[in-house]
């Protein structure tokens, strides 16, 4: 804490009193309850039934206890999907987007206005286009018979999406999401004092040493925030479905796997169970990152 505060002021900084504070917060809390807590609990409940989209179990769902959860945890298809999701997050977000985004931001930090704006505009374009549109464009790019990629590389007849489904969606997501990391790191790099970089250079530090010893300590918080956001987004990303069509088990990341299970196969109960497990994984990932961030803040405060 920068300045000491009395305990009373910490507990009630606005001086509203408990009742009035609760009244002000109530509408927001109700919305949170209705649209976040209730669906989450409903998912938990659905996950304990054999509820289906059609058929007898749609009208008369029956409680199956924790069978769905047990089956999911033991199901090799779920393990496979979880592993693919891990590959997808690690490959496209943590390594791909974050690294590429930082590289572009670093290279462009001193670039002239026009070049910088042009590159940023191009990268941003990939980010702001509607996903259905870009998925359609990518299907065209990678098409087996008349795709642009095959024409450019002279690889006619290569069905990229069928033959290399994971590679395709990883490259796609790097292309799609790099803008966010680039913007965040561009902003973060402006906070690195140029005097410190100049000093480091004066002492003969090479690029890597400058990055490691000067830049990184300044932007560590940004890196963690960036990784937290992009890995959660990527973990929940459904866009690959629009490219692969979802039927291919070799590229069924969790959101697609849940969609196939719950809506395509109609097993809503089982799908809900997987969705809840996914929620738990999300929470764990978020907690780990927040923990790291808090440690960082405590370090700074000390």
């Amino acid at each position: 804490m920068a300045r000491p505060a009395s305990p009373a002021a910490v507990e009630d900084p606005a001086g509203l009193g408990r009742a009035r504070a609760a009244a002000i917060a109530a509408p927001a809390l109700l919305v949170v309850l209705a649209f976040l807590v209730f669906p989450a609990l409903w998912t938990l409940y659905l996950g304990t039934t054999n509820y289906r989209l059609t058929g007898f179990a749609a009208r008369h769902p029956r409680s199956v206890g924790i069978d769905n959860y047990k089956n999911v945890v033991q199901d090799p298809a779920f393990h496979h999907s979880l592993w693919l999701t891990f590959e997808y997050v690690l490959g496209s977000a943590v390594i791909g987007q974050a690294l590429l985004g930082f590289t572009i931001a670093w290279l462009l930090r001193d670039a002239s206005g026009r070049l910088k704006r042009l590159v940023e505009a191009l990268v941003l374009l990939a980010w702001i286009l509607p996903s259905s549109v870009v998925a359609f464009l990518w299907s065209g790019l990678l098409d087996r018979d008349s795709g642009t990629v095959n024409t450019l590389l002279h690889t006619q007849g290569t069905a990229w999406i069928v033959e290399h489904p994971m590679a395709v969606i990883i490259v796609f997501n790097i292309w799609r999401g790099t803008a966010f990391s680039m913007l965040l790191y561009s902003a973060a790099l402006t906070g690195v004092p140029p005097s410190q970089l100049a000093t480091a250079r004066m002492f003969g530090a090479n690029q890597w040493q400058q990055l490691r010893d000067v830049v990184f300590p300044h932007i560590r918080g940004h890196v963690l925030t960036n990784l937290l956001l992009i890995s959660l987004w990527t973990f929940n990303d459904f866009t690959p479905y629009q490219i692969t069509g979802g039927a291919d088990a070799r590229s069924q990341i969790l959101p697609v796997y849940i969609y196939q299970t719950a809506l395509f196969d109609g097993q809503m109960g089982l799908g809900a169970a997987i969705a809840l497990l996914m929620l738990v994984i999300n929470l764990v990932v978020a907690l780990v990152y927040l923990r790291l961030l808090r440690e960082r803040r405590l370090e700074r405060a000390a």
Partner: protein
Amino acid sequence: MGARSVRPKRSGHPRPRHPRPRPLRTFIAVAAAAATLAAGCSSSKSSPSGADVNSANQPKNPTLVITANDISGGKNGAEADWIQKSLIPDFIKAEAAKGITATVTFRANGVDDNAYKSKLALDLQSGTGDDVFALDGIWVGEFADAGYLKPLADVAGTQVDDWDGWKQITNAVQALGEYQGKRYGVPNGTDGRVIFFNKKLFAQAGLPTDWQPKSWQDIYDAADKLKALSGVTPIQWDGGVPMGEATTIQGFLPLLAGAGGSLYADGKWQKPGKSFTDALGFYQKVYGGGYGDAVLQQDAKGRDKSFSEFAAGKIGMYAESDYMWRAVVNPQGGTAPMADRDAGVGYALIPAQTPGSGIRKQDFVSYSGGSDWSVNPKTKYPQAAWDFLAFMNSNAETVSRIGGAAKITARTDVNTQVLAADPMLKFVNDKVLPITSFRPSLAAYNDVSALVQKAVADVVGGKSPDEAAATYEKGLEALVGAASIAGGS
């Protein structure tokens, strides 16, 4: 209609009575807001029950929304155009003559059948859903069990069974809209599977243009010759999970029937036996032997692409239903039109593995299906909805429907009038329907079909038929229970 495979009126499974799961007590504690939300979701609209529905006391200004997987300029485009430009205006006129001002709109869809099914089920489940809709005959059981469909007589009263149109529909076709002996929908028509072939390519390969294979070996032999032509895939025999039901009915089931087997017989699901692995062996031969394009089977848009390839003269033989003829390569309004369809596309009966080895000792086999039109049990205007259904399936409207593109309709009176004009459809009506089989109208069918698709895809992907059959057997047992499975064919 001729011979049909076993099509039980009653499901073989005992239906255990389970109490509805009680909403957990915690929910009540969650929030008043959540509770109101839940109440809003589960309260059902009250609509008149079938007994009260009759044309005398119906509302004078009914509003109907009609939906089907038809879209102008795309999937089933001819039917979409007919519904919008002809059927609906005609119906509104006919209602006006009775002093009723009907407002009818059409909601178009142009997606894969499975996506349409999910959408329909979700709409009906949430208590909305359009008033009159088309659905595949094999979904009737699942939808009825879920309560999304009710027997037509429960929705619209006794007038349903009194409708004079039923007399024109054969029992086999009526069964496409029935489940456990009750009528849930009015069938739209039926179809039959054949092998289409490109006569030009056949001539180039030195094969007869009036080709009719007598065994699977004849198909392999023709494929061998076609393989010599450059840029030509000899066979398209649907074999991928993305192709969904097409893989089961177009691809696998005619092969299974050709090897003398069926998925379901005498009230039991069949354990995969020799006929099952033989049918998978056909796929192994075709896709392992370089006669077919294995990669295309896995493509999310594989079916549409294979249609375009056939139309472009890049595929020699294609196992499909008459849908191919009237809706795909049709020079008028097909999705992949062939200007020289009538002269350039041949069709042959699907042979049994060897002569006489087919189901019921047949030399040739086929499978048929068809869709229905049905009424949403929650419609506010059951009388108008039924009137619409009866009107659209009247002789005059059925004739008008197929005005642009002939089709085997549900009505025999219409078929005799119009099919003579189209030799292919006459061929299906006269030669294929007498030897065809139908899929079991059981709620579990679609899940079993998904297992079949998986088994086929496994073989196309390189696994052995025995391995794929073992996986199928395991899946089947988990799905329907060992008690519902009979021991092998």
